[in-house]
Structures are given as C-alpha cells and as structure tokens.
C-alpha cells in the first residue's frame, strides 16, 4: 500500500470496506454459532477466513450480504450500516457477491448464459445491458466458450467458474467465496485460484474473502488471514504471523502449512535469522540453500 493517499483513494477505500462489529447469531436460539465476531476487510485485499468444519465460517459469510439477520451486532458495508428492508438488501447484494460452496445449489438455469444473466435480469436491467454484463462476466474469468453449454453437462471446475460468473454479473466490489476449491481436483483448484488472482489484478477495487479449511491454500494465496474458532475470530493479520502461531493453530484444530513448518525448523537450526518466511516450495528451497547447504 502506498504511503501517500490522494482523496480519491481514501474515498474508494471507504466504499470497499467491510466491517463487522460484535456479531452474535444463533439458528435455534439455544446455541450461539457466532459469538461476538469482529472483522475488517480492506479494499483490494485477498483475505482468507480459516477454520475447521463447524467453526461458523459459512454463517459469518451469509451475514455479509444480509442473507441472515444477526441477533446482535452491526455490519458496515462501504460506510453504511446494513439494514434489513428489501431496498437496502438489494443494494448490498449488488456490492457483496457470494459464491456458495456447492455450485449445484447456485446454478439454476439450464444454459450457462441464462444462469449468468439471472442476477442482472432480476435487477431489472434492459436486455442490452444484461447481454453486456453476461459478456463481461464470462470474459473476466475466461469462459466465453462455455456460454451456450448446458449447465448439467459441465465439469465441477467449470460449474464453479459459471457460479462465479453469475455473481460477477452483479458487478460486486466485494467477492465472497465459500470453500472455493472444495470438490475440485488439484489442477482445477489451481486454475480457479489463478482465475481469481487475475480477476483481482484486472480490478484493483475488488476485495476477495475466501472461507476455507485448507491452510496451505490460505497461506499461499491470501494477503491476510483470519482464524475462526467456535464462532469467534481468534487471530488475524499477515499469513505468516497468524498461521505460524502454533498455539492458535492447535487450539483451532488446524495444521500449520508445511512450508511454514519446515521454515520454523530451519529457523531453530540456523545460527542466524534465515530471512523472510517463504510463501511457496520454491522460496523454501531458496531458504534451505541459503541457510543449510552453504
């Protein structure tokens, strides 16, 4: 982030900010699923929300565009507090787009372009605008060739992309992904992450929040990491600082990313500071070369 910010930037920062304050929620009025969640998303950041199954990740995400109404607490999207009337909800749903874990729940129309057009059509846009948005959304994640395909014939990875395109057609500036790589083979999940990365590069206003239980993914992909445990956010910050905190990781029933674990070992063995923590296997090899095999 640049040190000097002009006015325009500050304004845009406010527009793309998400802030959650002391959020409490329960499905059955007996057991709290969210217990006072506080969190913040900054413009242009790629944030990973990490937690084991049942930590409350999905429940938290569903609050971000008003699909669930909190029992207590406030959600501030782009400078306005979320209210729960139809008009305000339509507005927030244009800003915050959620991609659900299972694309089969999300894709409803038989043909790809029909499904991508669902959001814009229901927003009451004209036919020309709808077509333009569908074209742009498909283009943004590079699936123009799927436009006329039947949805039920697509592969899981393709379905996931179509689901994302359907959300992008609403032109949100905050993209929320629930377990983006679940159910995908390694190649498709890497492909998907690259797609999301290039999406962020094309549009530096876009903030992305991804919930996942995959610490490796969170560590390699995210700019910032938040760890969630039993309805609370226990730690957030730089991926290295958060996922390298053994106490937090253990008590949250997670595992430390392997690259980081090896690096920690090197740190203990090496006589001097081994340098910046590595993000990838390649960077790790470099650290090993510099410190152990000298």
């Amino acid at each position, binding site marked *: 982030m640049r040190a000097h910010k002009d006015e325009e930037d500050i304004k845009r920062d406010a527009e793309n900010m998400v802030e959650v304050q002391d959020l409490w929620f329960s499905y059955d009025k007996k057991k709290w699923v969210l217990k006072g969640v506080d969190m913040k998303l900054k413009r242009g950041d790629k944030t990973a929300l990490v937690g084991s199954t049942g930590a409350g990740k999905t429940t938290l995400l*569903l609050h971000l*565009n008003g*699909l669930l109404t909190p029992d207590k607490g406030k959600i501030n999207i782009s400078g306005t507090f979320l209210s729960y009337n139809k008009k305000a909800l*339509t507005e927030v*749903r*244009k800003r915050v*787009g*959620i991609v*659900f874990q*299972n694309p089969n*729940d*999300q894709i*409803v*129309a*038989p*043909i790809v*372009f*029909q*499904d991508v*057009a*669902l*959001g814009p*059509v*229901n*927003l009451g846009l004209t*036919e020309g605008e*709808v*077509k333009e948005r*569908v074209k742009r959304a498909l283009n943004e994640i590079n699936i123009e060739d799927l*436009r*006329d395909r*039947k949805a*039920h014939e697509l592969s899981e990875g393709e379905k996931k992309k179509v689901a994302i395109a*359907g*959300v992008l057609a*609403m032109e949100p500036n905050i993209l929320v992904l629930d377990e983006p790589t679940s159910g995908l083979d390694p190649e498709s999940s890497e492909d998907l992450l690259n797609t999301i990365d290039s999406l962020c590069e094309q549009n530096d206003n876009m903030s992305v929040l991804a919930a996942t239980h995959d610490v490796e993914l969170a560590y390699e992909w995210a700019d910032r990491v938040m760890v969630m445990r039993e309805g609370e956010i226990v730690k957030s910050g730089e991926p290295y600082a958060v996922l390298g905190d053994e106490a937090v990781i253990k008590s949250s029933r997670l595992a430390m990313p392997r690259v980081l674990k090896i690096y920690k070992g090197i740190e203990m063995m090496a006589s001097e500071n081994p340098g910046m923590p590595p993000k990838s296997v390649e960077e790790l090899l470099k650290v090993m070369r510099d410190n152990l095999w000298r």
Partner: protein
Amino acid sequence: MSLHHTLEGYTVSNKLVNIRTGDKIFFSIFTLIIAVYTQSLFLLLLILFTMSCITIWSGVRIKHYLELMTIPLTFLLPSILVLAFLRGSEPVLTFSIIGMHLAMMREGLELGALLMMRSMTGISCLFFLIMTTPIAEMLDTMKKFRMPEIVVELSFMVYKLIFVLIEEMESTKKAQDARLGYLRGNRIKSLSLLLSAMLVRSLEKAQNMERALEARCYAGKMPSLKLGIKNESENKVHIISPSLILMILFDACLLVMAVGGSVI
C-alpha cells in the same frame, strides 16, 4: 436422473424452442379445450395426429414418444372397463362370475372408446407443450401473466427440488440395498428412513438454493433463452409471427368444426 435429462434435453435442443412460450401455451391449452368439448372422433384423431407429428418433428424420438403415451393407460383401462358395464342398455357380451351377472353394453363401450381417444389426444396436446418448452420459460410466462411472486418462486424451487430428491433417493437407496435394507419385513422401516434422510438433506439443499437465489436478488424472473441469440436483428419481438398465425388458423378450423356439429 433419466427424466431430468430427457425432458430438459428435448426442450433445450428443440426446433420450436424459439417460438414464444405464451403462444405455445395458448395453442396447446386452446386445442386441449376443443378436444374436451368435441364429440367427434374425427376431430380428435385430427388433433392427435397433428400434435404428435409436430412434437416428433420438433426433435423427439418416436420410440420414446410412444412409450410416454402409454403412461395414462394404467388409469384409463380399469376406468373404461367399469364404464362399459355401467352405461347403456344394449348388452354386447354377458357372462357371470361368482354368481354375479355382468353385461358389457354397447353405449358404454362407445363412451369408453371416445374417452380413450380424448385422453390420448389431450396428452398429445400436453406433450407438445412440455417437449418444446422448458419449464423455466413457462414459469417466466406465468410471471408475465401476473401470477403472484410466491407461486412462481415456489414452483421453480419445487421443480428443481424434485430432481434433487430423486437423486438423493437413488443414492440413499443404493446405500440401503448394500446393507440389505429391503429384505422382507424391513421394507416400511427402510422406506421411511430413506424418505426422512432424503427430506432432511433436501431441506438443507433447499435452504442453500433459496439463499443463492436471494443473493442474486431473484424476484421470479428467469432470463429468456432468446438472450442467447447473438444476431440482434433476429431478436426483434414480433407481436404476430407466422407460427402464431398458423396456430390460430388451426384452432379456428377446429373450433368451426367442433361447434358446427358432426362434420363426418
């Protein structure tokens, strides 16, 4: 699920899919009403033949079409059999079973034949609509005709869920079969376990679906397949298209024949 793939498959690749949905609904229902009104076997045959030809021409396999046509027979055959004994006074065939004297009547048999024809004709009208028009398009037309939002939304969710439920049921049943769940005596218990497991899982599915729809501001509007036409000039909506004129002409002829009394 086979049902899902055949029906959706037909409508998506159908030659008549681009004719306006409202026109097709109007055509099939109006023809249907004429079929129910008329007493003329000739008219019924004419409708049955025309409708079946159009539907099969538009892209349905004949074998599959004929198979589907036999579905209502399980209802029709016993009902018509009953009528044959009940109606009229001129016996054609008499016999007795366990001390009861039964007589099949001429009038009853004639009525049975008419009803059979009429049902088959009605179903051909229905098949024309189903096999050329995706359900999503029909629901969208319902929305245009000012059906309440909740009706359209619920119908849409039900339509999607039917296939989810059937898929769930098939996979749960496989799991149960593997554990010998359907052995004699266990059946009702297995069945209700199957149904409730399916129900709970579908409930979760339905919740996810509702949220996903809500997240995209769904208000009952389904994007039209016409959006897919790339060429702008083809996309102009004609209020009166050649196909509509043909459909109206056909129905008008039928109406004249039906009201004009027995033509043949």
